[in-house]
């Protein structure tokens, strides 16, 4: 279980997170929704170690992650699919997957997991020798997810995977999220597409200007009047 307690993060004078509390129980899909600039990316980036926290704690299975180097956090089994996909456009599709397994030493296992990712995303297999920069947006998102899976994470954090993708592609991405979760991976999903995210998630949080204002099950928030007004456009 991932536990975030009273987390404060600032960029210079800008207070991006103001005492965030959040729990991600094992094998669940948890979503965090919120408007642009609410601090969603900041939360994920703090958990993965890219951003330093001001105060508070982030523990994973009881271990404090704050202050841990990024590669050690990854070794705990927490992988991240960053906002905007960020595939390595100058590497081939296959190399992108291999680099996702950068910390692993088991060659045979890595090869098997590449096959596994190709099974999840047959389109990537067809393009295995292409430069990642030549892929479409949807394919790049698949690659970013596949790359994160290559570290064999127990918890996968995704920052707006549906951003800028066609509705049909978004549907596919959400199906994959469910499939990955069925295979035993806990998912922490950030979304602006609140409708899809709440339908997919077991638990959900709403973040507003650096503070959690609501939380509950996905279904509860889906029927919450305030959520409907602010995030579902009803």
């Amino acid at each position, binding site marked *: 279980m991932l536990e975030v307690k009273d987390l404060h993060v600032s960029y210079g004078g800008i207070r991006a997170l103001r005492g965030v509390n959040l729990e991600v129980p094992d094998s669940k899909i948890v979503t965090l929704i919120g408007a642009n600039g609410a601090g969603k990316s900041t939360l994920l980036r703090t958990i993965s170690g890219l951003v330093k926290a001001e105060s508070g704690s982030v523990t994973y299975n009881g271990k404090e992650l704050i202050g841990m180097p*990024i590669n050690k956090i*990854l*070794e705990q089994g927490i992988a991240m699919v960053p906002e905007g996909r*960020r595939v390595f456009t100058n*590497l081939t599709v296959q190399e992108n997957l291999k680099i*996702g397994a950068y910390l692993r030493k088991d060659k045979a296992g890595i090869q098997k997991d590449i096959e596994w990712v190709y099974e999840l995303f047959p389109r990537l297999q067809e393009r295995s020798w292409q430069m990642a920069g030549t892929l479409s947006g949807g394919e790049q998102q698949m690659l970013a997810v596949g790359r994160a899976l290559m570290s064999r994470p127990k918890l996968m954090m995704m920052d707006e995977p549906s951003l800028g993708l066609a509705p049909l592609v978004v549907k596919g991405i959400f199906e994959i999220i469910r499939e990955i979760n069925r295979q035993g991976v806990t998912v922490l999903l950030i979304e602006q597409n609140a409708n899809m995210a709440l339908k997919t998630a077991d638990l959900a949080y709403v973040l507003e200007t650096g503070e959690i204002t609501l939380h509950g099950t996905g279904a509860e928030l889906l029927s919450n009047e305030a959520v409907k007004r602010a995030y579902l456009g009803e």
Partner: protein
Amino acid sequence: MAKTILPYVISGISVGGQYALIAIGYTMVYGILRLINFAHGDVFMVAGLLMVYLAASLPLYVSIPLVILLTVLLGFTIERVAYRPLRTAPRMSVMISAIGVSYLLQNLALYITGGLNKNYPQIPWISDRVTVLGMETSRVTIITPFLTIVLVVLLVLLINHTKIGMAMRAVSLNFETSQLMGIRINNVISATFIIGTFLAAVGSMLFFTNYPGVVPTSGAMPGLKAFVAAVFGGIGSIPGAVIGAFIIGIAESLIKGLDTILIVHGTIAEQIGFATFSDAFTFILLIIVLVFKPTGLFGEKTTDKV
């Protein structure tokens, strides 16, 4: 005609190979840090001086590897001390730090040598005179391009087919995402400096063997030429830097010999003094490239750097 030109082409290829070995250091560091490492030419000069001092008291089979080792250590240390603490500082600060290191090395060299020309040791076999295709030259002239090509091929294999090479390509595109893969970017940056200074150390042995000696400013000209080669080839690109270096080496050498070539050809009757312009040529080339094709021959079109 061909017989007159050939020696200049051969010596140009050789000089080009030496520039290439320096230019790779510029282009690799730029590729990863977007930093023009102004100290690189001076590290090259220090390698020359180290050889002068070490070869004076140690046999060559010890001093040659020792020079390479110490030069690599110097490159590694410069990055650790002068560039790493500025990793999140504006790029201009790192650039100024690089200029500072450059002056520091030159002044240290001035202090140690007293500004005197230090004779470079004769390295047997490679300093020997040989006759190739009817022209007499030192063996190093012939060896340089081949050694350069071998080292470049090994480097390209390293970058394209090893794990550290893949990490280098990833880091050159994006620091943050590379970190998310578990790559420790500082190690990758250190590896880049180690490779760059290793090649410069090898280059210094080939270069100074053909010159009378080393002075504290000996790194400036070859450093600048190699830098122009890297820009000409498209800074960040290794094949670009190598091809740029060979083109500059050959062109420079041909300009040096232009008087003689034209006299033999019968175009002119006496020396005009083209040789004076051989250095100017390089810098005119730099200006032309920067004006008409700033990305160089093989330069990257986009920079996706956070």
